[in-house]
């Protein structure tokens, strides 16, 4: 082991002094720059990215919103309060108020924090589990591969939405002592990640299997690199493109899944609001207010559409077969 490592050092030493003089003439374009350049030319992706950044930014600064999410506006007239609470948009309430005279605009922003946090956290955790499982299965093969991939098949065999509803309903029976918002977000992210890691695992395994026979991996092996190094330095970075594309498209799916279970009453529950639970609240008031229904759903729709556009752009930008066209 020790000899092979020093061998590789010996090989690399003479090459380094010659490099600077040679490099100066070549205008180097990094991988990221190439990808960004291709991404930039995808108009819908740029619009999506802009929209997504706007939504994320606005939701992040929700604490600066004019009203606290659960504050009831007592300055409304008796007449407005009696009209099912749905006050029309005004200078004080940009989007009006909901049925309990809470500011809709501020509530929408706070709800956005929950929905976006769930989407991105779930993808982060799900992709991590998926990369871990897929890497082990693809690299070591054999019985480990069989066990892990049968496990993935097992999770894939659950009907997604019914299982999601059942597990969420079961977890709703527990009373935790911690902050209710944190508990709800954690459980939803946990359940979604539990049911959403399989596609990444399969993707990573497939990538690993094709990459394992490539020359640079065989060279790394010949130089004595151990499994961990080959996976972390060679295989995972080279598998990142499809993982990123799948993950970016998954964010939208998870945001919809969260809003779906909240809409069905087993996700985020009052007083915390997510876009889905707001829609669930307003379902009974469909008759009285159109704007209340349009806003949270529109927020989900626009965000998910923006994410899908970005994912689409990323796919085009990262696909090496389309390069140099």
């Amino acid at each position, binding site marked *: 082991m020790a000899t092979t490592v020093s061998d590789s050092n010996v090989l690399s030493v003479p090459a380094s002094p010659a490099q600077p003089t040679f490099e100066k003439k070549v205008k180097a374009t990094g991988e990221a720059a190439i990808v960004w350049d291709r991404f930039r030319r995808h108009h819908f992706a740029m619009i999506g990215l802009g929209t997504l950044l706007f939504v994320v930014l606005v939701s992040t600064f929700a604490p600066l919103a004019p009203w606290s999410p659960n504050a009831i506006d007592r300055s409304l007239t008796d007449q407005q309060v009696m009209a099912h609470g749905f006050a029309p948009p005004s200078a004080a309430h940009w989007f009006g108020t909901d049925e309990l005279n809470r500011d809709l605009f501020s509530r929408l922003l706070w709800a956005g924090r929950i929905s976006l946090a769930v989407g991105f956290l779930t993808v982060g955790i799900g992709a991590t589990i998926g990369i871990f499982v897929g890497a082990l299965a693809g690299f070591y093969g054999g019985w480990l591969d069989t066990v892990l991939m049968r496990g993935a098949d097992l999770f894939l065999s659950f009907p997604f939405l019914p299982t999601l509803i*059942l597990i969420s309903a079961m977890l709703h029976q527990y009373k935790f002592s911690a902050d209710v918002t944190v508990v709800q977000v954690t459980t939803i992210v946990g359940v979604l990640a539990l049911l959403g890691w399989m596609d990444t695992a399969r993707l990573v395994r497939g990538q690993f299997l094709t990459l394992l026979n490539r020359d640079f991996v065989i060279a790394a092996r010949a130089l004595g690199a151990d499994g961990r190094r080959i996976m972390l330095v060679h295989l995972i970075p080279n598998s990142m493109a499809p993982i990123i594309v799948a993950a970016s498209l998954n964010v939208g799916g998870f945001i919809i899944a969260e809003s779906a279970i909240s809409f069905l009453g087993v996700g985020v529950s009052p007083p915390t609001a997510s876009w889905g639970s707001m829609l669930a609240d307003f379902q009974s008031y469909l008759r009285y207010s159109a704007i209340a229904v349009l806003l949270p759903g529109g927020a989900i729709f626009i965000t998910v559409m923006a994410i899908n556009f970005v994912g689409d752009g990323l796919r085009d930008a990262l696909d090496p077969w389309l390069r140099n066209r």
Partner: protein
Amino acid sequence: MGITLVLASVLLFGILNLAPGGPFDARIAAAHIQDPGYLDRLNHLIGLDKPVHERYLDWVGNVLHGNLGESWTMARGQTVNTIIGSRLPNTVMLMTTGLLFSLVIALVVGTISAVRQYSLTDNLFTAFSFFGISIPAFWFGLIMLKFFGLELKLFPVGGIYTVGHQDDLLDRLWHLILPMIVLSLLQVAQWSRFLRSSLLETLRQDYIRTARAKGQTERLVLFRHAFRNAMIPLVTVIAIAIPSLFGGAIFTETIFNWPGMGQLLIGAVGALDWPVAMGVVTITAGLTILANFIADVAYVIIDPRIRY
């Protein structure tokens, strides 16, 4: 396959039984009933006093005999078979009409898009499919309900028939239209894209060139040669869509008050009626397996190149 099914049922059963207490705890506490023996009696009657593995084996034994158990809370003592039996036809009707509707629309949209690739119509359809994939089904349902049901009053706001008109076929169709459209949106968006690329791929094949070289009209080339071959992969796509169609039915039924399996699942979950909930999931899983099997068989019939 068999092992996966067994493990899946063990996992799901186990997870549901992780819930603390039984379905009656909260109800009895809320009613301030001081008699502790009553709760024990209820739990004994539904078999909750047995250990988990025994309850699982009982349940599996019953399921293998075609008996999904007894309801705990929704209709205490009624068999799950009866409850599901009364709901299943409604869901099957919604899903089959939704499936046929999406298939027809997707075929038309996909064919036009492929034949007129990159035209204005094609781009419009592309935009529409992006729209259909991104829009949350339940929000689309609420909008349709608000606009066509409550504002324009063109369609009823829910249910499967007007009271007193349950044998009127037109009345039932009238109630079916909105839920069917809502259920179909996602499928139309996905399948039309799929058919478009499949058809474009087929139109590049040599036998299409041959057919054109023979002097056959473009219409015949399209429908006799290209269309049938492009349809083959669609069979699998449709089979795969069955679970997601059922997922969509959960929202559609909730929004349009459609007394089917999806609404039953939500009701059972709200009432902590695990046998009913497990029954719905089991039937769904069974239908999914059945759909995949039918797809496999259909594949062999449609495509003579495949032999087993």
